[in-house]
């Protein structure tokens, strides 16, 4: 079959949604489908600066990139003005401003979908918060091609799913793909038909996570050989809960527990303001943005991952820690609760409660066997449910269900199968 994936950015641009669509596209190609990707030429969504080539073939996927309007200061002002007044009045008059300010505005992409969209069996739009989904959806509707959307919605950020045109897209498309059951519940609460919303999840490739000896990794990172190491891995934004994690760590340190804290991830203004408060705290190591290799070393070096974030859409870092055999601790918010099984492969703590988090860490410090068992259970879970092939099975299944539903509601079929892969007989 032939699928068109429309996304705001595509690797080498970095991001969870970008990785998701790339993994999915590549896996579908390996299964004999033809997948084309329409995306912007940007590496950076702050500016939508056109940096990447117009066409690339990446691991069998044809990636067509289209120039987008640059997002300069005045465009950001328009976006902020639109959002501010939209939430105040809920008037749809402000939506064009949000659409304009959000970007990526790539007329070439719209034209390409309109002129070439009929070649595809289905169009899959990714990341509802950006404008390409709105015009991609409109173009697919004009052509009558089945269209599905993966919104990547953040429950606490309504502007990622609850603007008027975003709701129009979700209500009008053939299927909505959520990444967690909590996200699905959110969409059902909006009034979407439960038969048109499925959960696919995020996936990893286990081969990308070679196990490294903990002692070797610790030496490489200059961390102490002995003792329990708590890892915080993620952008150090305020909603990620770094302050809660540090407060919990400070409390455990004052009790004399043999632990260290490793904070890894890009710094923000928020984190820069936080560090002076914890200056001199023993056992605290801070690293900024790291390479993939260094990230793996930090995961191998630690004993558990702590990310008490209240704004996660999924928390793929939990899967990464599990794959390395480490238990995880997250905040009891809907998306995270549907990933972590409390007491099985990690702990869920009260959001913002440092003492609850400290108690959970202390339980792991006190019982190395429990730590090991939880990590192993987490790894089993990832291998069973959250690998790229598993996720692709689910999305491929959704594509087929959408096509079948279209066929059932549009009249008798002629027995034809799609071109790319003939019907295989037998088991």
């Amino acid at each position: 079959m032939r699928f068109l994936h429309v996304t705001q950015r595509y690797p080498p641009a970095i991001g969870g949604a970008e990785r998701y669509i790339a993994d999915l596209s590549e896996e579908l190609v390996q299964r004999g489908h033809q997948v084309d990707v329409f995306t912007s030429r940007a590496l950076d969504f702050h500016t939508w600066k056109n940096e990447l080539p117009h066409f690339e073939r990446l691991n069998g996927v044809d990636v067509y990139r289209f120039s987008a309007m640059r997002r300069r200061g005045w465009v950001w002002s328009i976006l902020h003005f639109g959002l501010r007044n939209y939430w105040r009045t809920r008037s749809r008059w402000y939506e064009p401003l949000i659409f304009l300010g959000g970007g990526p505005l790539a007329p070439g992409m719209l034209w390409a979908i309109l002129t070439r969209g009929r070649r595809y069996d289905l169009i899959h739009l990714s990341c509802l918060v950006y404008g390409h989904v709105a015009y991609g959806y409109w173009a697919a509707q004009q052509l009558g091609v089945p269209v599905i959307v993966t919104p990547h919605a953040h429950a606490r950020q309504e502007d990622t799913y609850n603007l008027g045109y975003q709701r129009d897209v979700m209500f009008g498309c053939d299927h909505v793909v959520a990444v967690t059951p909590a996200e699905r519940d959110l969409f059902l609460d909006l009034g979407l038909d439960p038969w048109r919303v499925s959960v696919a999840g995020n996936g990893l490739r286990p081969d990308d996570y070679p196990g490294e000896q903990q002692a070797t990794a610790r030496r490489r990172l200059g961390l102490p050989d002995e003792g329990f190491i708590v890892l915080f891995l993620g952008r150090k934004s305020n909603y990620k809960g770094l302050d809660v994690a540090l407060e919990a760590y400070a409390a455990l340190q004052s009790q004399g527990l043999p632990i260290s804290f490793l904070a890894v991830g890009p710094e923000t203004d928020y984190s820069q303001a936080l560090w002076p408060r914890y200056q001199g705290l023993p056992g605290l190591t801070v690293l900024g943005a790291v390479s993939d290799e260094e990230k793996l070393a930090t995961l191998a070096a630690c004993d558990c991952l702590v990310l008490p974030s209240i704004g996660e859409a999924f928390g793929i870092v939990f899967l990464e820690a599990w794959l390395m055999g480490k238990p995880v601790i997250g905040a009891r918010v809907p998306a995270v609760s549907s990933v972590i099984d409390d007491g099985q492969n990690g702990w869920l703590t009260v959001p913002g409660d440092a003492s609850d988090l400290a108690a959970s860490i202390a339980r792991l410090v006190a019982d190395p066997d429990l730590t090991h068992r939880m990590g192993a259970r987490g790894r089993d879970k990832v291998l069973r449910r959250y690998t790229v092939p598993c996720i692709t099975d689910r999305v491929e299944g959704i594509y087929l269900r959408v096509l079948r539903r279209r066929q059932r509601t549009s009249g008798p079929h002629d027995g034809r199968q799609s071109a790319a892969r003939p019907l295989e007989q037998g088991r």
Partner: protein
Amino acid sequence: MKAHVAGPTSPAASAVCCLLRERGDVVSYSDQVPLDADLYFFLGGHEAMKCLTHGLVILDLRHDTTLETAPWVSYADLCLVRSDQDREALVDAHGFEPERIFLVTDDALSDLVDKAVRDALPRTHIERRGMTMADHGTAMRPEDVPGPTPQIASLAARLEGIERQADIMLRGYRVRSRLPVIGPLIAWVRRNLTSHLREPYLDPTLERQVAVNRELVITLRELLDRQTDLERRLARFEEEQRHG
């Protein structure tokens, strides 16, 4: 309807074939999957499920005690299981949508297939934990006794009429103007003149009414099923009394 049952020869497969034939379907049965069926019934995972872009695909896991073939649920429109535990395992451990998983006996399968073909399966959201499909499963389990009385048949026909009318939204309606050139502008103005009433107030109100209508139809259908069941039991009781 053309139906195809795919899977190894087994009593379960024969039972499904018989049931589909009783429904009046033209049934074929083999591991080789044809391209011209309207309904595909798989008694386990099958590579053909990954290719079917037409028809209705049902996966029967009622005889898979270990749920070994659970990943194939991804490729099916509906999935049948034999117990609440299996259903919960598919929902909680594997993350499938509860609405697609049915606890159903052979007797009630025909009704389920009818509804699925008409796209009339319950559309209410089922909680992931707590509430299960057991209620619907019970409702879909009539006793194996003679057909409904004329009164019940008439009620069922009226209920079907109500079900068809439950969705009162004008989903296909779009403001248009036939005037050349300025037509789209007029349509745009008309749409925007009414959108402030339609979007925040009228549409949500009507959608709520549609949800109530659908819920009402489901409730009425359950009551009707219960009534049918009671009448059948009464008939059987009277029959037993008559024959001493």
